């Protein structure tokens, strides 16, 4: 998700890594790059300014710890500041055991509120709760139908009263929930501009009527500098308790997350990482910061793996992913495991270094491509899988026939395999040198 930003900061700091001592000028040069990267990542102009100031202040004149190189020291400071800017720790969704939990979901048009409401309902239902979804967007054509269809998909009841007043709808929904023993209510409100006074008043009235446990702002991760204006107004007029960041499964660098947290102080609680109903995750500031610094997000991958496959298999997969000496057999097995976990581009984005692999020409992360890869490897002999070097043109033709693919497909696969081996080797080297701390240590299972 934040690969490009990570790449840039890393490139900027690489110079520092190779030098023995740090001068003020060095720090400045590196931070200029960091500033540029942050701006390109859509972090708000003023937030960037403060951030750079803070890092500069901390970096200059600080004693370099004996265990670290000067460059590592700067990386450490940048990372620490990023984490603190992102809110420090994880913020949980408020849940009360005995009282009715009401979540009011608000935001600009097209941010992803309806989908997020359904995702959240599913997540809470999985925890054993009984959610009721409420269709309070009476304006956008077919918004009510959209929520109803999603509710059906996740087998969660949807409360709708057609195009009646959203305040009345919300109030009636809360009453129904109390009467019928629901423990969770999710109100899907209409998208609106933060400067639309009538529409903001409607939200204030809904809030007063139902006294929600949480008022959650859904924010599009693609948002630019305006994120702080919108979030700031919602916070000032309505009062927010949390933020859900959506559309993080693309190449958005998500600087909006940094801005909103820094400017409004509202914690980011969840992130949306795909169109499927399961694609909602807890937000971890330290992971995001680690990722910004180019160290991947192994923890998220492991967590997801554990949700889908058992822990043993997950650990095994993890190990194989980290092992440089793997064979085409491992490659195939690994791909199959990975495929079970969901959209592949999403998963690989979590892994260190894979941000770069994604950009390698010729390596397209594509589900269909993976099916092909599986077929190709299956059509190889045992020797061929162990030592792909022996695969000549004749063998390629045979494999192509057997797998219903073309020689070009096979060439591409072999090239990818070599690339990946190279990548993993590099990682092992870095790991040995201790340059990929701290996430790269033992993993908590």
């Amino acid at each position, binding site marked *: 998700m934040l690969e490009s930003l990570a790449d840039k900061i890393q490139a900027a700091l690489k110079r520092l890594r190779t030098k023995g001592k740090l001068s003020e000028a060095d720090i400045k040069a590196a931070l200029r790059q960091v500033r*540029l990267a942050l*701006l*390109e*990542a*859509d972090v*708000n*102009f003023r937030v960037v300014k403060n951030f750079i100031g803070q890092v500069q202040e901390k970096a200059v004149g600080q004693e370099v710890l004996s265990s670290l190189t000067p460059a590592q020291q700067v990386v450490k400071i940048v990372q620490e500041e990023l984490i603190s800017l992102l809110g420090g720790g994880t913020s949980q969704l408020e849940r009360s055991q005995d009282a009715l939990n009401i979540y009011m979901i608000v935001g*600009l*048009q*097209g*941010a*992803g509120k309806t989908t997020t409401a359904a995702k959240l309902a599913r997540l809470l239902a999985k925890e054993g709760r009984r959610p009721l979804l409420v269709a309070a967007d009476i*304006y*956008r*054509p*077919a*918004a009510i*139908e*959209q*929520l*109803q*269809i*999603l509710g059906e*998909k996740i087998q969660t009841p949807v409360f709708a009263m057609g195009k009646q007043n959203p305040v009345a709808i919300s109030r009636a929904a809360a009453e129904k929930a109390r009467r019928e023993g629901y423990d969770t209510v999710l109100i899907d409100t209409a998208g609106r*501009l*933060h*400067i639309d006074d009538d529409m903001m008043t409607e939200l204030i009235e809904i809030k007063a009527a139902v006294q929600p446990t949480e008022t959650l702002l859904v924010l*599009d991760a*693609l*948002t*630019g*500098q*305006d*994120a702080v*204006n*919108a979030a700031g107004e919602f916070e000032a007029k309505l009062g927010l308790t949390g933020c859900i960041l959506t*559309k993080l*499964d*693309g*190449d*958005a*660098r998500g*600087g*909006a997350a940094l801005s909103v947290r820094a400017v409004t102080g509202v914690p980011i609680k969840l992130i949306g990482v795909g*169109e499927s109903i399961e694609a909602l995750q807890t937000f971890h500031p330290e992971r995001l910061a680690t990722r910004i610094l180019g160290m991947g997000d192994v923890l998220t991958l492991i967590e997801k793996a554990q949700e889908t496959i058992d822990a043993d298999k997950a650990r095994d997969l993890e190990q194989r992913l980290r092992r440089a000496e793997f064979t085409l057999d491992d490659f195939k097995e690994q791909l199959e495991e990975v495929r079970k976990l969901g*959209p592949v*581009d999403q998963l690989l984005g979590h892994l260190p270094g894979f941000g770069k692999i994604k950009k390698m020409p010729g390596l*397209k*992360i*594509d*589900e*269909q491509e993976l099916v092909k890869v599986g077929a190709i490897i299956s059509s190889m002999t045992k020797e061929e899988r162990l030592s792909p070097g022996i695969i000549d043109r004749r063998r390629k033709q045979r494999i192509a026939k057997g797998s219903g693919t073309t020689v070009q497909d096979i060439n591409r696969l072999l090239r990818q395999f070599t690339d990946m081996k190279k990548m993993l080797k590099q990682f092992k080297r870095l790991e040995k040198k201790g340059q990929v701390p701290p996430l790269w240590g033992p993993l908590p299972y």
Partner: protein
Amino acid sequence: MPDLWSRLNSSLSKTRTALIERFQTLLPRDGRMKEETWEELEEILLTADVGPTVTEDLIQTIKAERVSSLDDIRTALAARLEEIMRAELPRVPTHFTPPLVILVVGVNGVGKTTSIAKLARKFRQDGQRVILAACDTFRAAAVEQLSVWANRVGAELIAHQEGSDPAAVAYDAVQAAIARRAGVLILDTAGRLQTKTNLMQELLKIRRVLGKARPDLPQETLLVLDATTGQNALSQTRLFQEAVPLTGIILAKLDGTAKGGIAVAIQKELGVPIKWLGTGEGFDDLESFEAGAFVSALLTEKE
């Protein structure tokens, strides 16, 4: 709501005063610009989402012109921006064989369906027979949404069931448009993040179906961008452009506080022209793009 032109025109005159007031305190007596002046200028451009690269480039250009007054800065900046933004392309192709086929693409929630309703409304007012094709077969109730709009603007709808093949919808729609001698066919597509290769392939497939029906179709492929989007809009334009050649951009949601400054970077770096501006949720909230007014609004602080 007053239309965009009158609003932009009043902002045009406000621009000069706003900018001058803003810089007044920074102007030294000898007429040379202080460092803070450039920083202020940088802030205006950056907070409008113009992006660090283009901002730096603009400032260097203007510095090189050896400006000595705020008026000069303003004029030079506005002129440079207008130069970038002025596209010579016609908004709607002037020579084509009907039906005019418009394919509309973009990421999730940017305003594709609403913008299609607005375009349809324009052509209907022009007396054209308009067909809308519901090729978003993925999002829940997307078909219903388009169907509501079709009714409101008086367009015909071609739709299949949710979950069906969007290319098949496109096929039926283009056949219907030709058979019924429709003036305009607009195809709505599902929102997709530009990095999802398989979904981008799907767009190519839709395009191919149109091209098979008649080689010159579609005459227009419009990308809808959300004006609140930051630098990612560049990636969106680049990758959509790679998948299906774009003929223009609709910049939606300009009625908020976002300036849509990323359009400058897009024009400058990718050369895809902005053709329409979305300024609200109603079907009349669509304005044609005009470089001068856009630049004025960009440089004016919204209250």
